[in-house]
């Protein structure tokens, strides 16, 4: 089961690297599926483990696509740090103890969207701050970029979470 999750994780990480390298649609769109990858880590993984995975995953994307080392790692770490508390808050205290799978079927579509929305928001805010966008770009540009990136990111993340969950209904987490 864990092997299956690892395979999905690596495939989706590769997909994110391809997205960063070849999806150059607009400066208003910063599409990332990394927050949902961290959110969907098996709940048996403690916060420290999740943070180390987030750090390594972020660095991999930085090295292999973004070209600015540390940007994704710095943005993804807060998501890993709040992951367990966020899950407990949205899905209930039991979520972290019972290792419920991260899927619409188990958690409900609105709760899933809300969890992904919060994690994407944290990720994007840290990302924009770390790259210095608030200092150099206008507020209007940043707001539009945030809105477009958040909407697209949430939509894609829900689709990915659902597709992966339906592919592996029998496993605990994806």
């Amino acid at each position, binding site marked *: 089961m864990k092997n299956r999750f690892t395979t999905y994780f690596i495939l989706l990480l590769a997909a994110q690297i391809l997205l960063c*390298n*070849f999806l*150059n*649609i*607009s*400066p208003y*769109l*910063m599409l990332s599926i990394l927050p949902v990858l961290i959110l969907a880590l098996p709940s048996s993984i403690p*916060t*420290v483990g999740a*943070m*180390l995975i987030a*750090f390594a995953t*972020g*660095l991999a994307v930085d*090295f*292999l*696509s*973004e*070209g*600015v*080392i*540390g*940007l994704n*790692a*710095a943005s993804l*770490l*807060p998501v890993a*740090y709040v992951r367990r508390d966020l899950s407990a808050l949205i899905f209930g205290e039991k979520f972290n103890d019972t290792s419920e799978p991260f899927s619409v079927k188990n958690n409900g579509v609105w709760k899933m969207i809300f969890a992904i929305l919060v994690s994407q928001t944290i990720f994007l805010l840290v990302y924009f701050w*770390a*790259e*210095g*966008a608030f*200092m*150099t*770009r*206008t507020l209007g*540009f940043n707001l539009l970029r945030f809105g477009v990136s958040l909407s697209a990111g949430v939509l894609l993340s829900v689709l990915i979470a659902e597709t992966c969950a339906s592919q592996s209904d029998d496993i605990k987490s994806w």
Partner: protein
Amino acid sequence: MQKKRSITKIAVNAAIFIMLEVAALDMLAHNGIMQDFAVSRAVHGFMAKCWGGAQKAGYYFSLKKTNEALAEENFRLAGQVRRYKEREEAMLTDSIAASYSAQGDSGIYVFSPATLVKVSRNKQHNYLIVDKGSEDGIGQNTGIITSQGVVGIIDAVGKHYSYAMSFMNTGMSVSARLGREGAVGPLVWDGTSSTGAVLKEIPLQYKFNEGDTVFTSGYSSIFPADIPLGLTGSSKIINGATYDIKVTLLQDFNSIKFVTLVTNAGDAEIMELEKKEEDVSTENEKK
């Protein structure tokens, strides 16, 4: 007891979070140094090969566009050659101008053609990968230009590929001049479009019109003077002291592939002089 354990857990989590976050932000702050690490250079080399393959397919389908751009450039270069010939003929009849030209053409800049293997455009810190490295005589701080402007500066050099900071990077500025003999100020990317820039710190006494050409000033040791960069647009007064002028770049970064690398052959000498000056200042301070 359980409460104590819980507090310890929270403290450990927070400490590790802060440690990793600081490490990531430190890497971000020292991106240039990080790019120069052997691991980064090896990754760039590997990725450049992968991107090169994928981009080749893309270029195959955009051959018509490339042909049109080359034809346009040919036409422009032919015009330039014609103008140089006319100037040369004029100089033959003016001995003073001829002698000035011979002295002025010191040839300290070495130019070599290169191809961009990877161009990032949609980020705040955009970068480029060029298919030339240390084995081609490329070093750090080599400039990247086209006939229509400045493209970037080489930041880290591998054997066959180099990593460069794009002009579309909020950390880069180019010393630029308004017209051939106007005021000089830093030209920076506007952070949004692929053809937008801002010429900063132009004193209020300098007059200019919309549509005036902006050139490189030649004050930096990286880029030669008089490379056309863009055309001026609207302006605004900052703190009642200087103008910030919008500039539309001549080089559109969306359609860039072939570039020219420009190395200042006198750069080592300039650096040596600067180092000597620094040493003298330090010694004086000690005394």
